């Protein structure tokens, strides 16, 4: 052991100060998150009940539940990921397995980066121009399919990026071994690369569920109605092409800013549900990731 000279002690103290300083920086972001989410949950949780989740809104959202919004959000998330996940995964396969190092690949990379940075409201404008009016699914009216496609384009770059990372994690030797026994490139991908990276790919896709579920601005321009009555509490009430739907995110905005005579707890309850969806989805993704990482054999 060293004897502590004043110099070392000073150094130690500086060390500790540095650590505290940076820990403080991190805490300054993390603690507000907990406080705010805690506040919302405390104010919103008492209003959440089975009826709140499974009943349609009544009296302009003042009474009843949020079932229609939950179903709408589910529709949008489902259709958008059904489109963006396959395209995104295949695009990532192209980038990591087929693309050569040239200017064109560089362009694709740039496009992915820029697509990820396009503001959500601009995606919304694109959806209005391309899907509502140009593709004209629903006579120039908003529709679920337009909203879902808009979000699909929006989530595409993120799925590409996460899938690419997952594919890159598969060791090159696996591929080489497969090629050596005479498999084609696609056979290698299908039999070796995808099965070995499916965990990473799915984690990336699952994380997009929470993003699409929370998105508001693009869908409110392309497919979400502020108030859309449902006949009953069935699951398949919306027609994906002819109908607009309600959505949780938009419902929160509507309840918080427009609906009259709403109990004070209702917007907090909707926010709690939204945050809950995000937490559950992210937690699921994390658990999934840890579980599959533990099974990894290399």
């Amino acid at each position, binding site marked *: 052991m060293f004897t502590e000279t004043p110099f070392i002690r000073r150094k130690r103290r*500086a060390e500790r100060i540095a650590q505290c300083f940076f820990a403080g920086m991190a805490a300054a972001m993390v603690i507000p998150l907990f406080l705010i989410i805690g506040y919302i949950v405390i104010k919103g949780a008492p209003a959440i009940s089975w009826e709140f989740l499974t009943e349609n809104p009544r009296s302009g959202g003042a009474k009843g539940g949020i079932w229609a919004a939950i179903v709408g959000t589910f529709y949008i998330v489902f259709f958008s990921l059904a489109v963006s996940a396959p395209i995104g995964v295949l695009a990532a396969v192209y980038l990591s397995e*087929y693309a050569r190092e040239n200017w064109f690949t560089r362009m694709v990379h740039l496009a992915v980066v820029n697509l990820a940075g396009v503001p959500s409201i601009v995606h919304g404008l694109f959806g209005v121009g391309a899907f509502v009016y*140009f593709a004209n699914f629903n006579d120039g009216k908003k529709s679920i399919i337009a909203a879902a496609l808009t979000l699909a384009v929006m989530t595409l770059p993120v799925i590409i990026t996460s899938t690419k990372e997952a594919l890159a994690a598969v060791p090159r030797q696996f591929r080489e071994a497969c090629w050596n026994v005479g498999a084609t490139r696609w056979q290698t991908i299908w039999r070796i690369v995808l099965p070995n990276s499916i965990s990473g790919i799915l984690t990336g896709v699952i994380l997009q569920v929470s993003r699409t579920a929370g998105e508001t601005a693009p869908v409110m321009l392309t497919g979400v109605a502020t108030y859309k009555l449902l006949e009953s509490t069935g699951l398949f009430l919306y027609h994906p092409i002819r109908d607009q739907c309600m959505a949780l995110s938009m419902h929160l905005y509507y309840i918080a800013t427009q609906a009259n005579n709403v109990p004070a707890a209702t917007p907090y309850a909707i926010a709690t549900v939204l945050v809950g969806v995000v937490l559950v989805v992210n937690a699921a993704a994390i658990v999934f990731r840890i579980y599959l990482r533990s099974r990894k054999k290399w």
Partner: protein
Amino acid sequence: MANSSEKRPSRGALALLSERTIESLIYVCGFSAIIFVFGIFFFVFKEGAPFLTKLNFTEFFFSKEWIPTSTVQPKYGIGALIVGTVSVTVVAMAIAVPFGLGAAVFVSEFCTGKVKESLKIIIELLAAVPSVVWGFIGLSVMSPVIIAVFHVPVGVNLFNAALLLALMSVPIMVSIGEDALKAVPDSYREAAVALGATRWQMVYRVLIPAARNGLLAAVLLGVGRAIGETMAVLMATGHAVNIPDSLFDPVRTLTATIAAELGETSHGSDHYQVLFLIGVVLFSITFVVNLTADLVVKGIRKG
């Protein structure tokens, strides 16, 4: 690779065909990102373009009079909206950059094992809170707090929105910043420690200069996110066409204007087209910001 497969007798024509099909599909999907980037620009521009002939560019960019529904003389000046967007972004970054980079340093240099993992997870969660929830927080939680704490007349203002944007853009800065710090070779750290530097000195003198480009890219991506954010600023800025004099003045941003007004504007009207032109402006701004960030990142890889 494909050539060798043609000579294999064991595979049926059908398998070959389906393989060909799927590979061409992969190529198409690979290009999809490029198609969509151009598609976005094309469709947004297409909806707004008819108004270009009537547009007075000086008035558009520099006038602070945004009166699109006037029955006398509509005025389409987005000067105040640009100032709003810029001011909210600048204030947000003034808060987020030190905290975001500080947190990145903390996660990357001072944490190990479980703590590091859980911090990263929490930061991921922070990134996943929907923006409409942030907006709701700004509107109903922070607004009264800001009135009470800062003794200002109105609680939905520049500062409120900037604070939300700071919290929203910190996660991306932390994760990119942490990547940048991770890319600094350990030999740098070892050399610094061997020279007797404290960790504070190591961060300040060695790591930050070495990871400069990556950190800059992290900041730029944060800026991009802040400029493009919509719902939170719609609900928390106060949405007033106003050049702010102080941190606590209400402002209005480009994004929020589109979100608030497009829904009730009839398709093809002047007002509608101008809102799409604002979209083109936003697209261009974020395009430049992201491109710069990307080039900066590529800079570190090469250098």
